[in-house]
């Protein structure tokens, strides 16, 4: 099937946000009605998460007319549940480690504050962490538009989920900024690396990534909780396992939501930058509003604030988020440059020089009328155009080049 890549990315990231909003709704039900010990609840969620991921990965491995169900429904590169590859282990460990730190940070937050709802919105700042990280690790630096959009979405997300009902202190903010957000960032960045890995010459699939990820994260988290239990004499790990089976129905509903949310998120990570994917996924805040209205109506969580100031602040937050995401979607400019060379210049050298230009995502040495075809991705046309063309002019040996802006694009997936 050949479809517009841009649409696919937003469909994936937004579906992930919807599934996430659903899962956090169920999370609110379980933690307010059944399980009040956050550490045990966390262990229970991970344990049930592993079971759910296993069950669904097996169901989706069933083959139907030559293709697995998973490859039809979720990710075309999924074949069947498989054992972890050696090249994946390092990234899976790092990603699971990030996930475990983030989870533990969250438990600590819950244990020092009765109601951390004031500090939780600041976890949305993770988008900015990702922007910063990408400027170091990825080839293309974030452009002004990307930084702007990231800031707009982040502030929108904070305003959209803001709450004045809980407590706040310096320690809790430090945990959010120094433990939870970095953990989240590490986890996202390595999930993206995993998705970009090639397994047997085919792109890695998000279902296997998620399954091994949740398994590793469960083991690491349980290890940390066990150490904490031994040192403090508590019984969180055991309670968690007991809860997992006692409330299996509820937690598994949440687990299904989380599983699909993350599988779709990982697949989107394979298409777009981690910061942009995270920004689109943060729209979960918008989708969670109807969920919390229903839950408040059923008296499961405190009633939804109808204070006009709060409604106005949240409304502004949501408008900012939508604007930020629209500007991500609309400012990306792609182009091909066809290059003809003068004879007598080494191809590999020129290739390297072309590759080093910022914004170049693909360099192909070709046989035919042209010598190179390069693909460009930039966010600001005038600036990007000028910079790229200037760099191109500095390369010796180029006879002629043609810039062809891409208007629309379809891709096989």
């Amino acid at each position, binding site marked *: 099937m*050949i479809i517009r890549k841009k649409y696919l990315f937003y469909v994936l990231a937004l579906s992930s946000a919807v599934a996430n909003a659903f899962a956090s709704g169920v999370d609110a039900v379980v933690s307010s009605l059944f399980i009040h010990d956050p550490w045990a609840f966390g262990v229970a969620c991970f344990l049930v998460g592993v079971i759910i991921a296993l069950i669904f990965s097996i169901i989706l491995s069933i083959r139907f007319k030559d293709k697995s169900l998973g490859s039809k429904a979720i990710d075309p590169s999924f074949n069947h549940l498989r054992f972890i590859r050696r090249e994946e282990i390092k990234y899976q460990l790092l990603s699971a480690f990030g996930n475990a730190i983030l989870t533990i940070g969250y438990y600590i937050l819950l244990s020092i504050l009765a109601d951390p709802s004031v500090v939780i919105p600041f976890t949305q700042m993770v988008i900015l962490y990702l922007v910063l990280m990408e400027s170091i*690790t*990825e*080839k293309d630096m974030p452009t002004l538009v990307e930084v702007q959009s990231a800031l707009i979405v982040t502030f929108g997300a904070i305003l959209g989920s803001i709450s004045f009902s809980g407590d706040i202190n310096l320690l809790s903010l430090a945990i959010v900024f120094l433990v939870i957000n970095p953990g989240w960032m590490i986890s996202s960045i390595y999930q993206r*690396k995993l998705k*970009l890995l*090639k397994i047997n*010459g085919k792109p890695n699939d998000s279902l296997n990534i998620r399954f091994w990820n949740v398994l590793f994260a469960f083991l690491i988290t349980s290890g940390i909780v066990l150490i904490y239990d031994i040192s403090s004499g508590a019984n969180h790990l055991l309670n968690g396992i007991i809860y997992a089976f006692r409330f299996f129905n509820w937690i598994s509903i949440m687990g299904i939501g989380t599983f699909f949310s993350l599988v779709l998120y990982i697949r989107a990570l394979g298409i777009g930058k981690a910061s942009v994917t995270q920004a689109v996924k943060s729209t979960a805040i918008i989708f969670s509003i109807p969920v919390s209205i229903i839950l408040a109506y059923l008296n499961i969580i405190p009633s939804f604030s109808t204070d006009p100031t709060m409604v106005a602040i949240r409304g502004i937050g949501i408008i900012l988020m939508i604007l930020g995401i629209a500007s991500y979607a609309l400012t990306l400019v*792609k*182009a*091909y440059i*066809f290059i003809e060379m003068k004879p007598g210049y080494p*191809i*590999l050298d020129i*290739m390297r020089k072309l*590759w080093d230009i910022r914004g170049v*995502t*693909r*360099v*192909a*040495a*070709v*046989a*035919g*009328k*042209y010598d190179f*075809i390069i*693909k460009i991705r930039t966010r600001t046309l005038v600036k990007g155009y000028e910079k790229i063309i200037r760099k191109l002019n500095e390369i010796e040996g180029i006879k002629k080049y*043609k*810039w*062809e*802006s*891409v*208007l*629309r*694009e*379809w*891709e*096989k997936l």
Partner: protein
Amino acid sequence: MVLIAPENGLVKESMITAYILTILKPGSADKAIQEMRKIDHVEKISVVAGEYDIVVRVQVDNLEELLDVTNRIQMIDGVEKTTTQIIEKEIAL
């Protein structure tokens, strides 16, 4: 930064990847795209503004198949001219 050389993953060693640059008659773009989307081995279709109208990226097993794909593209109503560029080496993100 991820470097993927054609020989280690993105493209199987025996595979041929090529760009087919096409020029269309004015007003025939939408129909031509619909036709191109039906062709096997087509990886990507980009509508561009410039000397060419559509850049098609194809991946085939051998030259015979490449000829077949080029042929099918040339047969599409509205396609005026095609230029095939076979990729010898590639670096991509």
